[in-house]
C-alpha cells in the first residue's frame, strides 16, 4: 500500500512541491540523511520529465507520484500518462520533437534535457526501472532504509 500518493497537474511549479513531499516522506521512512539530496533530485528529474511529456502530448491528466515505505526500502514511482512512448526503455524516443520544443521549452534545449534527466537519475539511483504500459510510463526508484532511524 502506498504510504503517500500525490497527484499534480502538469505544471513546472508543482515539481518543487513533489520534491519536498518526497524528501519528507523518505526521511520519515528512514532513508539515510546523506541520501536525501539524491532522492530529492531523482524525484525532481522524474517529475520534470513527466510534466514535459504531459505538456508536449497535450495530456490534461495529473502526474502521479507514489511514495511507498516498505520493510527494508523506500520506493518512489512517478507515472506519466503517455502510452507507448512514455517511459519507453531508455526513453530515447520519448521526447519526440513533435511538440516537445513548443511553449516555454523553446530553444531546442528541451530534447537534451529529457535525456539528461534520465542520465541524472541513472547516475544517482542504483535501483531504477523505467517501464511503459497501456496506462503510461513509470519510473520506479528505490532506496534502502535504516529502520532504526525510522523510530520517532
Amino acid at each position, binding site marked *: 500500500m502506498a504510504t503517500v500518493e500525490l497527484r499534480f497537474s502538469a505544471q513546472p*511549479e508543482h*515539481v518543487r512541491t513533489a*520534491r519536498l513531499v518526497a524528501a519528507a516522506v523518505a526521511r520519515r521512512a528512514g532513508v539515510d540523511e546523506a541520501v536525501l539530496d539524491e532522492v*530529492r533530485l531523482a524525484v*525532481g*528529474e522524474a517529475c520534470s520529465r513527466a510534466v514535459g511529456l504531459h505538456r508536449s502530448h497535450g495530456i490534461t491528466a495529473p502526474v502521479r507520484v507514489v511514495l511507498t515505505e516498505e520493510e527494508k526500502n523506500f520506493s518512489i514511482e512517478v507515472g506519466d500518462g503517455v502510452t507507448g512512448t512514455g517511459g519507453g526503455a531508455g526513453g530515447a524516443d520519448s521526447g519526440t520533437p513533435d511538440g516537445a520544443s513548443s511553449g516555454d521549452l523553446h530553444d531546442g*534545449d528541451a530534447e537534451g534535457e529529457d535525456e539528461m534527466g534520465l*542520465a541524472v537519475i541513472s*547516475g544517482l539511483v542504483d535501483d531504477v526501472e523505467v517501464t511503459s504500459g497501456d496506462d503510461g510510463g513509470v519510473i520506479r526508484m528505490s532506496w534502502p532504509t535504516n529502520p532504526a532511524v525510522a523510530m520517532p
Partner: protein
Amino acid sequence: MDLSLSTRNVSGPGGDRTVVEVGGEIDVYTAPKLREQLVELVNDGSYHLVVDMEGVDFLDSTGLGVLVGGLKRVRAHEGSLRLVCNQERILKIFRITGLTKVFPIHTTVDEAVAATD
C-alpha cells in the same frame, strides 16, 4: 525558494567579465528565467560570463541544459562561460553527467575572472 539573479561587470587580465550571481533553486520552473538572463547578456554583447553558483541550493538537469545552452551561445562569439562552485552536492551533478569536462569550474569568482584560456 525562488531563483535570484544579479549581474555585475568585473575586469580581469583577459578583459571584461560579466559575473552572474545565482541563488536559490534552478529547476524546471525557474530555469527559463536563468535562460532569459543568459540570452539577454549575450544579445547585449557580454560574451565572457562567470556564473557564480555558490548561492544555489538545488540544480537539476533543466538547469544543466540552460548552462549548456549558454555555453553554446557564448562560444558562437568566441566567448567563455565559467562556473564557480564549491558545493559537493551541486558538483556531483556535473560529475555524473560528464559536464565537468565541458565547463571550467572554479572555487572562487576571483579565480574565474583571472582565468584566461
